């Protein structure tokens, strides 16, 4: 009855639209209860489909939505949207900077019938996912060591520092292979991003479209990139940040003090090339992909700082991170005794997380947050902290919530989702709704770790449990 006998198979989808390439993966996972923690969890995530990587299609600065939609149809043709239990879609790097990235994210969400998150321009989330997808296992296996994962893609490098499988700090830089684009097989410039042009000026390289870069100039660009990334780990960066460096900083990363014993891993397209090259000692021809990727990867392997780490710390997936992260780590599973006023409203997407309340929260603050929820368009979440609380205090908070909700007529029509870490969803929901007599449409999801995120997506009910994903991560350490 506590749900611990459940052992059902669910479908997960991961979609990654990056600066250079896009791809998809579909996996099966078992929904089961951990007999020690008694929590529901997804286990045995087994990929059952992995698409070819395709170049992310652009029309000028815009994502080519029609072609992307075609890819989506092709990748997902063998599954029904309503069978998707979890996973997610990420639009990353320069693709996320496209003016229509948010529109395309909405398209993906609609395609999957709001079952999973689809997020664009969420750099801390990307960093978190890359860390979890690439080096979670290494980090857990070496719990006393801090790991820094650099997810080097076409447009951005997402940085995350974590210990024992937990991400502690994140950052994001406009460092990537595709800021300078070439004619394949040569260094003839075919494109420069808005970040590359000032960098070339800064380096005294006065070249433009159709000009040829020398090998020396290519190395100068790459070395500048890599020195910037190295400084994030070594702390050797100048105290005063120059304007070009500042321009490349989307979310500053602060490695901070206290982590002497640091291991570095790579992921993303450039990271994968580096691991592959290191293992096989064979490389594609220069600019074979029309960008700096191959040269960056070769340079990474040559520079002693990176080489030492790349040899010593090899992630299982050899740098394939975002899809792994989306499939394996992005979806949490609720407990099996949650409270649902109305299952017909599921799934719920883009729920803003307004804040946290506990029995110690002043009634006026509870009321303010509930009122705020009543003014949202799609619904909202509140984190509920009930750790170490006794019956009377939980009852008191439930009553406070009930009264606050009763004052908000709008909330009858707007879903209010209460996210609870403890296994107390059913009782809290019953108390808040006076055992179902209140018309308020609340959902109480328990046994969920409500990460430091800004938004949540609640999926479809499956065998009494709900998948929950978060995005808009605030995990950026000093800069959050």
């Amino acid at each position, binding site marked *: 009855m*506590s749900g611990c006998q459940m052992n059902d198979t669910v479908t997960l989808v991961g979609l990654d639209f990056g600066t250079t390439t896009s791809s998809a993966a579909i996996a099966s996972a078992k929904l*089961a209860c951990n007999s020690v923690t*008694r929590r529901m969890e997804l286990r045995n995530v087994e990929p059952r489909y992995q698409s070819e990587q395709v170049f992310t299609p652009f029309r000028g600065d815009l994502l080519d939505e029609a072609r992307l939609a075609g890819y989506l149809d092709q990748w997902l043709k063998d599954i029904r949207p309503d069978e998707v239990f979890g996973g997610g879609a990420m639009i990353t790097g320069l693709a996320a900077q496209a003016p229509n990235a948010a529109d395309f994210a909405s398209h993906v969400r609609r395609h999957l019938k709001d079952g999973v998150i689809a997020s664009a321009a969420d750099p801390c989330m990307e960093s978190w996912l890359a860390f979890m997808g690439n080096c979670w296992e290494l980090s857990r*296996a070496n719990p006393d060591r801090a790991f820094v994962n650099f997810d080097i893609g076409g447009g951005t490098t997402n940085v995350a520092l974590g210990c024992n499988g937990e991400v502690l700090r994140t950052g994001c830089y406009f460092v990537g292979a595709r800021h300078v684009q070439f004619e394949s097989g040569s260094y003839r410039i075919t494109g420069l991003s808005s970040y590359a042009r000032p960098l070339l000026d800064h380096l005294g390289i006065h070249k433009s479209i159709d000009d040829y870069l020398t090998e020396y100039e290519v190395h100068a660009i790459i070395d500048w990139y890599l020195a910037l990334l190295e400084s994030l780990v070594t702390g050797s960066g100048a105290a005063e940040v120059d304007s070009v460096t500042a321009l490349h900083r989307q979310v500053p990363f602060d490695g901070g003090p206290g982590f002497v014993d640091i291991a570095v891993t790579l992921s993303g397209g450039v990271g994968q090339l580096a691991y592959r090259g290191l293992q096989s000692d064979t490389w594609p021809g220069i600019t074979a992909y029309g960008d700096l990727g191959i040269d960056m990867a070769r340079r990474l392997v040559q520079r002693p700082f990176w080489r030492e780490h790349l040899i010593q710390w090899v992630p299982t997936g050899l740098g394939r991170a975002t899809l792994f992260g989306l499939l394996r780590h992005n979806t949490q599973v609720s407990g099996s005794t949650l409270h649902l006023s109305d299952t017909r409203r599921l799934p719920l997407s883009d729920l803003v997380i307004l804040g946290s309340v506990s029995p110690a929260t002043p009634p006026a603050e509870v009321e303010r947050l509930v009122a705020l929820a009543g003014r949202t368009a799609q619904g909202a979440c509140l984190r509920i902290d009930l750790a170490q609380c006794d*019956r009377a205090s939980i009852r008191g908070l439930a009553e406070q919530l009930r009264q606050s909700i009763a004052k908000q007529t709008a909330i009858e029509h707007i879903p209010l989702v209460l996210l609870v870490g*403890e296994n107390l969803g059913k009782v809290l929901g*019953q108390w808040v709704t006076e*055992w179902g007599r209140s018309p308020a449409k609340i959902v109480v999801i328990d046994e969920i770790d409500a990460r430091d995120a800004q938004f949540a997506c609640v999926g479809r009910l499956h065998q009494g449990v709900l998948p929950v994903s978060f995005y808009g991560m605030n995990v950026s350490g000093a800069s959050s």
Partner: protein
Amino acid sequence: VTELLALGDIKVPDPKPDRVYSGDFFGEAVSFHSLKRLLGAADFSKAGDRNAGLAAPSEKLREAARTLLSSLTLRHIYDNPLTDDAGKVDSVMRVNYAIDLARFETIADSTLGEFKDWLLICRPDEAQQVAKALTGVMAAAVAKLCDVHELILIAKKIKRTTQARTTLGLPGTLSSRLQPNHPTDDPRGIALLVYWGLSLGTGDALIGLNPAIDTVDNVSALLAHLDQIRGQTGAPTQICVLSHIKTQLACLERGAPVEVMFQSLAGTESTLTSEFDVSVDLLDRAYRTMAAQGPLKDVARQFMYFETGQGSEFTYGKHNGIDMTTAEALCYGLARRYDPYMVNNVTGFIGPETHADNFEMIVANLQDHFMGKLLGLPMGMAPCYTLHSGITLDGQQIATQLLTAAGANYYMDVCLNTDRMLAYFDTSGHDDQTLREVHGLRPAPEFLKWAVERGIFRQDDDASMRRGPYWGNVRQFCNSDLELELLLKATPAAYGFDTAGPRPANAVSRQTRLHQAIGREAIESELDLALCETVAKFRMIQTEASDKQSHLNSPSAGARVARECAEQLEKENTQVQVLVSDGLSAAAIHHNLPDVLPTLLDGLGSHGISVGQPLLARYGRVKLAEHVAELLGTDLVIHLIGERPGGDAFASQSMSAYLVYRLSDPATQKAAAQFSGNAEIRFEYTVISNIYSRGLPPLEAGAVIVEKAVEIIAVKAAGNRLTMLQSSQRSH
């Protein structure tokens, strides 16, 4: 492959009217009014036989019975088959008569006393050959005449060797069945327990898992999982998932690796068919199917595995007046028909109603081992206990030392003695290795070779076997420290890998024993009425169990309201009645009631459900709810009751809520009867278990129980029928 004799072709003498066996013993005339009575009185006194009224009330009467029994010939036993309650020879008894009649004739006129003496002086090969000349009742009768030394001495003469991938029962060997049971069949936990056992050098007889969920899908998946582990480790052994024989046959049909076919047996047909859902015909079919289609048919000489244990016939009230030892011997007579690869005896598993203390458990195990060997079976032993009996780990260890002296083929390896799924205690891999070292024994030769190659054991120049450098090293089977950590996180009651010699390190043993001690304390704890009164205003009721001991020793007493108390209860006809009783852990009630009950009463009241004043009962069992429901005329009794503690101290605080729905109106009863196939069904059950702080928290449980109660009342169904009706409603 053994040719199975058709039941109708087995010659059995016609049953005869009961006769009186009497004699004069130092001036006192003593009579026993049937062979069953004589056999019962001749045995050591054990709780099950006492509760059945079969045990001799005094040592003098027991010895009188033994003296009379000694004077009966084997032919007399043969000529007087024991019958069922209808006076018929049942199919189990009939199978027992499939003996070598020519050989029987050579011993038939010996008295049982003379036969016992002959067994003590005969050569081992002669003792071995007599197996096919004996019925189960004959073996039981001799066992009752033997003292402890004789039970050991005679059994030690007889070795029974069987062979699948490994060879069991060779002289100088002691094997083990690795039992990696997990409460939720979590593959990670199962893998860890298998790795742990293999690292201790156990599992050469079998890796055999009792599944938490007995479905074809789940059992097939578990078989595939075990098969994969076996292949990956290279351990030369065989695998089995101990589900019902019908499930295993279905799995085999699907192509699952059912390498060894398992079934529990009983010594009376009524127990076998109505409780275990097995018949001789079905067993025959399973045997023939395995012979024709089993994955080891070209490798193994034997492929059947049976489990038995004294007392199941008594517990189910289907013993036909036959004592526990004799019924057990009849199981062996049935098992013998299928030339099994292994037979496992689990006497002690049931509880104090059959075996109250260490002595009863130890002597019963020695008897069982003796009888099995005498009947030619490859006997493995699992002297075991539950915490609500008086049997202890030390008693279990004494039993294993004696049984090893008697030449048992194998023991179980239940990690750290604690079965995580069945909440009982059995021998461990550490125990198995300890016994090997004390008695100079080694595993099966095929397995030993593998274990030496892996460094689990090492063989010295003098061919003696010792623990090797990798003995007890679980990590050797994992790809990484992280993998081991993740497996460990899915495994309850894993208190540490450290060892001291063949034993768990002291710190590990202390943890194991402390957890057991706390569980036992919870069973012995008395319900704190004052504490309960602070939670709600209760009405007290008495059960027919007058004290703790009668409660533990007689499950039926706790299932009835005492007569004088019942007379005071009148029909109230409420929709719900809440009943609270200690069950097997008053501590569970103390721990959970303050949070569960107020929430429960609040929720029921809020739904407008009529609820009677809560009842509180000391010494209650689950079925007390049925009697209460009938007395009060209540539709639904919500029975909050303490669960039987296992090996986890925290779980001794675990409570269950039994929602017992009375099928009072004829239409509902008819629907329930149709659904269940039981025309007499009167109640349906929904159970919400594992209520405690580390399981389903009591506050949350209160709300869950309310929700379920509302559903039961609305749908007029509970249990599987409720689930089915709700599912059908949803699909419409």
